[in-house]
């Protein structure tokens, strides 16, 4: 115990030296010698000290890991950059207004005229149709799986919904064009006939009974984005604090009232975030729409019975033309617009999602 009494005996000087504990590190280095240590004074570990021993293996491994993180970040930057660099020459050679024109003539690099306004319409219209159908259904499924389905069945049921995401889009395309479209014909004709006075349901640039229009495409897209929205919604609804649910139950609320007063307000913004993710997926979906939508040279009538091409399907259809830099550049310009829009939509979705359940009542 000699040493410990020793320290008590000497308690005055170190006690004083340490009164501002925050500065202790810096003052001790050049300060008076350490009284207690039998060894020569050793510099205390500095927070940013470079003398820290790190093993070679650790340094290598950390370097590789950090490098891979940087690599992923730079991939996204490279995508934007490469698309931009390749699009610029084509945009210079473009004889039409890229943002406002509806034509797409890119075969001859000497005489190109292309614009995205029609592509934008078909893309947005089919995605919105999909979203309008998929959102309520996905919300319903998520509530069913988290709040209503028996616990034993909830998992297999969720697996079934996830299976929808495992079906390749080319197969949805075939199914939509060859199986679903004929079935939808009478529905399309009825909507067009009964509600045709509303512009959005009026005659499109192809006959309403052709099946290869935005209406069919939107329904198929809805099926494709259903598992995405459901997955996110399920996750947030599941996170509803059970104390809140039990609180509502204890007040004598019915199941529906519990859902309406606790689960839904808690998960609403997460659900919207999920819907945005679905929208991002729908905007970029390619092959299913390439198969379903028929191509027409007539401009759109701004109806859901229009046919045409989305950004993505226009690029896929044009792959046969990929034989010179300028022509490819035109398609890359369209791809760049698609990249920017999906980037924005996805970023928004993550932002909404990350706010879900926080600061909510």
């Amino acid at each position: 115990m000699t040493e410990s009494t020793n320290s008590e005996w000497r308690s005055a000087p170190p006690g004083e030296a340490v009164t501002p504990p925050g500065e202790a590190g810096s003052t001790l280095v050049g300060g008076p010698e350490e009284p207690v240590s039998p060894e020569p004074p050793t510099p205390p570990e500095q927070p940013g000290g470079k003398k820290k021993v790190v093993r070679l293996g650790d340094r290598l491994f950390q370097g590789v890991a950090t490098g891979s993180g940087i690599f992923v970040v730079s991939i996204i930057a490279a995508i934007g950059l490469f698309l931009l660099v390749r699009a610029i020459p084509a945009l210079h050679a473009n004889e039409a207004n890229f943002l406002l024109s509806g034509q797409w003539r890119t075969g001859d690099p000497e005489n190109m005229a292309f614009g995205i306004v029609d592509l934008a319409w078909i893309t947005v219209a089919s995605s919105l149709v999909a979203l309008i159908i998929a959102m309520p259904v996905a919300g319903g499924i998520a509530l069913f799986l988290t709040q209503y389905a028996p616990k034993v069945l909830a998992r297999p049921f969720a697996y079934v919904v996830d299976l929808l995401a495992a079906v390749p889009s080319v197969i949805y395309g075939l199914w939509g064009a060859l199986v679903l479209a004929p079935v939808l014909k009478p529905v399309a004709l009825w909507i067009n006939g009964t509600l045709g006075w509303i512009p959005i349901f009026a005659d499109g640039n192809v006959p309403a009974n052709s099946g290869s229009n935005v209406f069919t495409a939107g329904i198929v897209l809805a099926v494709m984005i259903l598992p995405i929205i459901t997955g996110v919604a399920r996750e947030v609804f599941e996170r509803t604090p059970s104390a809140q649910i039990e609180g509502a139950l204890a007040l004598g609320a019915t199941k529906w009232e519990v859902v309406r007063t606790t689960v839904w307000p808690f998960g609403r913004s997460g659900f919207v975030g999920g819907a945005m993710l679905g929208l991002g997926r729908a905007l970029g979906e390619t092959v299913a729409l390439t198969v379903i939508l028929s191509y027409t040279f007539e401009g759109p009538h701004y109806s859901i019975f229009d046919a045409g091409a989305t950004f993505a399907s226009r690029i896929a259809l044009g792959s046969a033309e990929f034989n010179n830099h300028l022509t490819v550049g035109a398609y890359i310009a369209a791809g760049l617009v698609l990249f920017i829009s999906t980037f924005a939509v996805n970023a928004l979705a993550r932002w909404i999602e990350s706010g879900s359940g926080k600061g909510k009542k």
Partner: protein
Amino acid sequence: MRTDTADLERPASAPAFQQLGLGRKIKNHTATVLFGLAFLVAVVPLLWVLFTLVQRGLAPMLNADWWNHSFYGLLPNDSGGGIYHALVGTLEQTFVCALIAVPLGVTVGIFLIEYGRNSKLARTTTFMVDILSGLPSIVAGLFIYALWITTFGFDRSGFAVSLSLVLLMLPVVVRVTETMLTIVPDELREASYALGVPKWKTIVKVVLPTSFSGIITGIILGLARVMGETAPLLILVGYSRAINYNLFDGPMASLSLTVYTARKTSTEAGEYRMWGAALTLVLLIMLINLLATLLSKLFAVKTR
């Protein structure tokens, strides 16, 4: 007097359990029915698609030639032929994709959880992985076209396809690695450090083995997902009806590209082949999903 008898007939106290109001009851039941129906609405297209595939695609698969022949030399109206050329392409392209995406993705996951926790770079990386997971496959194809073919001057090839698939698979691998590493309790890492094991060895020998089952399952599910991709293939590789084993040279078939291309042969034989290829693709994907489940059971951490 009447009122008095009425008072007498009334129960001494209110019933213990009051009946729910009719309106509340109806609302509650309507909601239950609607949510259940929503689930059925999702099941219908799934079963419908699967039924269509089996109904129209089963016949070609029952022919032995289907599994070891290609479409080489077939005229539009010729029946017969097989899917071998496309199977080769699909398997080679996804395998090479996995060869690149898995080590890269796992390393990124390790960075995010073991090294980067909450650093600025880690947050940026997580965000970029999110963006990458929402990247339209056609844009991935265009980017590889702009990089590999326009800039580097290579020809279209199966390998270019593999590269574009890497972009689509990478976020899946990163996510699953991240999730599985988060589950590994810190106590195991500390136990290893306390034995004088360096951090990198702790990660490789203790942390990764503990999360191996989950990571391998996620990777295989991601593989199944990219296997069905078609969009980047349209611009990155030509279709070949013959067998091509070389990933680096010449046109190469794959199952999804075969489905897409066979659609243009609008004959009975062409449709027959198209549905056959489609069912083959879905069966392959299901098989791989099954494999994932089996592997996850096989590698699960045992306690007995």
